[in-house]
């Protein structure tokens, strides 16, 4: 058999090697420093975990079926919050994505502004947003919807703009060449290329938002999180078991449905 001899790989320069070593050392130092400075009493932590384990875990596996109705309603609210929030985000993300995509609006300035807006939005953690909206619109599901909407807009906008940037621009050129105007090009060359992917990501985001909206209630933004906080304050671990079960079932079903739907679309 013939043997091939590949050309030698380019050697990493000394500078690169040194840089890599320094970065590794810095990361290790950072870890050590953090753990030393947070001062955990490991003995006590473990002891407590073990004793609570006995009191809590068995009850979690023994759900309080009496609470089923209430939990189901709450879970439904959670799903609605996630749905309304991700729908709103998907709608908001579209114009921002077109602004941020470098191959649309025709300008580096627009695209940079768009990308800045999107990163600024992404910088807020969902819970912080939820707290802000609870303060702004009161402790109800609407605060949750807004928190999810804004939280998801950043990610969806970024995804959408990357999808727009990856379209085949030759098709756009083909439409230009037959005399189509900008709006017609949008509808006939751009949309057909991006809509299925947009949908797929919106559904994926809805999947994430179900999880996010399950905990928003902890800060009073509606949904099943409110029940979580009550159950844990009352040490009602049986009810907590029901809640967890509900979340697990819903998340699994939606994950499954979402991946089925998404594989159909694209």
């Amino acid at each position: 058999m013939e043997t091939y001899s590949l050309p030698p790989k380019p050697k990493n320069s000394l500078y690169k090697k040194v840089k890599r070593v320094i970065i590794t050392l810095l990361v290790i130092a950072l870890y050590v420093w953090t753990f030393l400075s947070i001062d955990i009493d490991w003995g006590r932590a473990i002891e407590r975990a073990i004793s609570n384990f006995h009191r809590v875990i068995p009850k979690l596996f023994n759900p309080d079926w009496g609470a089923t109705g209430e939990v189901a309603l709450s879970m439904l609210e959670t799903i609605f919050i996630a749905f309304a929030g991700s729908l709103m985000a998907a709608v908001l993300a579209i114009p921002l994505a077109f602004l941020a995509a470098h191959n649309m609006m025709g300008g580096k300035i627009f695209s940079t502004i768009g990308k800045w807006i999107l990163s600024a939005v992404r910088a807020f953690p969902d819970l912080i947003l939820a707290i802000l909206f609870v303060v702004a619109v009161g402790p109800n599901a609407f605060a949750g919807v807004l928190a999810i909407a804004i939280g998801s807009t950043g990610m969806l906008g970024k995804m959408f703009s990357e999808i727009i940037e990856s379209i085949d621009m030759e098709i756009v050129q083909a439409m230009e060449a037959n005399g189509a105007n900008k709006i017609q090009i949008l509808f006939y060359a751009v949309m057909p290329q991006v809509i299925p992917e947009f949908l797929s990501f919106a559904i994926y985001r809805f999947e994430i938002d179900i999880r996010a909206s399950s905990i928003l209630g902890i800060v009073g933004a509606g949904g099943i999180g409110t029940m979580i906080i009550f159950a844990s304050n009352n040490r009602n671990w049986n009810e907590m078991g029901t809640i967890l079960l509900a979340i697990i079932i819903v998340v699994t079903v939606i994950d499954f449905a979402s991946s089925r739907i998404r594989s159909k679309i694209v």
Partner: protein
Amino acid sequence: MIEFNNVGLVYPNGTEGLKNINATIKDGEFVVIVGLSGAGKSTFIRSINRLVTPTSGSLLVDSEDIINYHSGDLRKLRTKIGMIFQNYNLVKRSNVLKNVLAGRLGHTGTLRSIFSLFKKEDIGLAYESLKRVNIDEKIYNRADELSGGQQQRVSIARVLTQKPKYILADEPVASLDPPTSHQVMTYLKKINKEDNITTIVNLHFIDMAMEYADRIIGMRAGEIVFDGPVSEVSEKTFEEIYGRSIREDDLRGGADES
């Protein structure tokens, strides 16, 4: 009629795409542009529908200088010039009919087109066009379900639906095998004759140029180095255009197979 008068085109990076081009293309002609890669064939063709903009000289289409055209004028100009590309450029996920109707966009109002409210006669025209290139049975298939040759025929149907006065084709057969290439060229030629549509095609296969062209324009380094009827063209002409002897891969072959 298309008239190039001392047309030059310098790309922003300084590359000279066209140098002092003079040529007149009369209505109904079938012109093939040949030349090596980088000779400026695409630049020549794309100047005519202003996908690129010449930087000097004047370029008349139907006696109007198009070099300074802007949005409105430009769309009107492009509406009467159909273009065919090497990569077909169909919207893969849309069906054939929708792709072909896209050829009608220049003639259709914005609102109508957003809601896909094409006129009855436009839809009829689209179907007729598909029939003319023998692909009407695929009308409801998605474009990506078709072979390369079928996709190129759909793109010809799209251009026909546009009812253009001119057709520009930039390497329309470069991605196709020999028999399919001949089929596509045969359709282009037939349309040129039947509808009297002026057709300008970039090709780099000598034998195909000879078989289908009425007139050949040879380009090298942005200049026209030959311009004449096929009857005046010999192997030696091509050697002059290419600046080297003719090789096997300058020929498409397969003329008999189609």
